[in-house]
């Protein structure tokens, strides 16, 4: 385990050192970026809409019965912005995009394509890892911003449509504006940027260390997704603590 962590830190460091080459790899970055967006946008919409909706549905009736209807918008707004959208979208992207990264790089490793790159003096870090890491680090925060908005919309529509809650949409958003600050959204977006780096590094590393045939690729994909999710949850706690210190 410690060897894996060391290798991942080293891979991340090497990718950081390769950042000046980003412009040369821009076509690959754009390709990866659109692939991530294309693969995830619909799922992000559906997931975040229903997360926002369920959050309103679970909390709305209780709050309304206790005379706290004005807090429903704020509760949905803050929960989506600070916690649910970044964490849930990161888990979704780990499963959807991280697994694909590991499978692709793992397959290239198993079938000697990465060895072929090395013999041509082409660094796999520059050619494969850098474009993927940059693409996911840009794409995930954008998806999370989108997810926050869709989640709020889901919460607002459910709060309006459910007769036990029944909060008009403009009132829901007025309450949300009163309670949610720009910092809350910024916190969520910053977390998602960190989660994107975790997913990118873990997935690419697992791909690069793949051994064996198709079974090895499958094993690497599973490890990449599980390790990413575990690290996302652990770092969520750490980052939340750090951000609380900064925000206080």
């Amino acid at each position: 385990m410690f060897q894996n962590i060391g290798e991942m830190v080293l891979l991340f460091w090497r990718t950081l050192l390769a950042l000046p080459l980003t412009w040369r790899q821009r076509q690959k970055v754009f390709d990866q970026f659109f692939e991530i967006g294309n693969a995830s946008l619909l799922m992000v919409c559906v997931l975040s809409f229903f997360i926002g909706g369920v959050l309103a549905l679970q909390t709305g009736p209780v709050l309304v019965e206790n005379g706290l209807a004005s807090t429903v918008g704020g509760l949905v707004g803050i929960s989506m912005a600070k916690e649910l959208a970044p964490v849930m979208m990161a888990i979704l992207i780990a499963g959807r995009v991280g697994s694909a990264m590991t499978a692709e790089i793992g397959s290239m490793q198993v079938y000697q394509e990465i060895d072929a790159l090395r013999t041509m003096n082409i660094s796999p870090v520059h050619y494969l890892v850098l474009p993927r890491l940059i693409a996911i680090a840009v794409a995930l925060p954008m998806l999370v911003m989108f997810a926050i908005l869709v989640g709020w919309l889901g919460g607002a529509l459910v709060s309006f449509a459910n007769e036990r809650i029944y909060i008009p949409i403009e009132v829901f958003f007025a309450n949300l504006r009163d309670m949610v600050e720009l910092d809350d959204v910024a916190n969520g977006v910053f977390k998602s940027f960190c989660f994107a780096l975790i997913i990118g590094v873990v997935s690419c590393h697992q791909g690069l260390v793949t051994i064996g045939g198709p079974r090895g690729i499958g094993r690497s994909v599973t490890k990449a997704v599980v390790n990413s999710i575990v690290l996302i949850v652990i770092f969520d706690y750490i980052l939340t603590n750090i951000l609380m210190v900064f925000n206080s």
Partner: protein
Amino acid sequence: MSVQQNHQDGVTVEVRGLRKHFGRHEVLRGIDFAINPGEIFVIMGPSGSGKSVLLKHIVGLERPDEGDILLSGESIQAPEVLGKYRVAFVFQSGALLNSLTVGENVGLYLTEHRLKPPEEIARIVTEKLEVVGLKGTERKMPNELSGGMKKRVAIARALVIEPQLILYDEPTSELDPLSAVVIGEEILNLKERIHVTSLVVSHDRDLAFGVADRIAVIHEGRIVAIGTPEEVKRRPEPIIQRFLNADFKTNNSSRL
């Protein structure tokens, strides 16, 4: 694999006391040989004898436990020595990048190192594919090609580097006899045209005796014979004779 694109002379290769373990298993047990510039040197041996591992050491994909490899007298363990000489590796599987077209695969080295403008790269790719008899396949994907065509594309990709040393790992494995002949002719043509040093690892006896200037026979991680094809054929050691003369014999008695 530096930028000196016009230098065409082959390099010398010296392998000295090379040893390699994987876990408890010693794959290479002290390999020594030298290859002259422009020579075609074939290493033969049964599967699992350490041939491919040896090639990976020469191209820097593996690091030896003991011993050294020298290219034109310089140890490849010294930084930048492998970058100084243009070394190409033709993998057993071809190892083409499946997400790229044939043309992109062949031009990958020039594109990634930005050695030529795109139009010049396209011209070179067409030229190299023509050399290996695959003109017009630039836009095909690797999965549209046969095994023999993939290997020829891999050779074209190696040629783009304008190599001083080409390493071939089982270049005729999985090929029909006609395709194997084409690959053998390609190896000879390259020697004639660009005087490249060639190191071929194979257990294909026809290929080895057809193209080799010298042959080494490797068995269980050791070189057991080295010499011209005729000298190797005359070696009396049972292991060499068994390997060189192994043939399928019909068991007529069991059929009767």
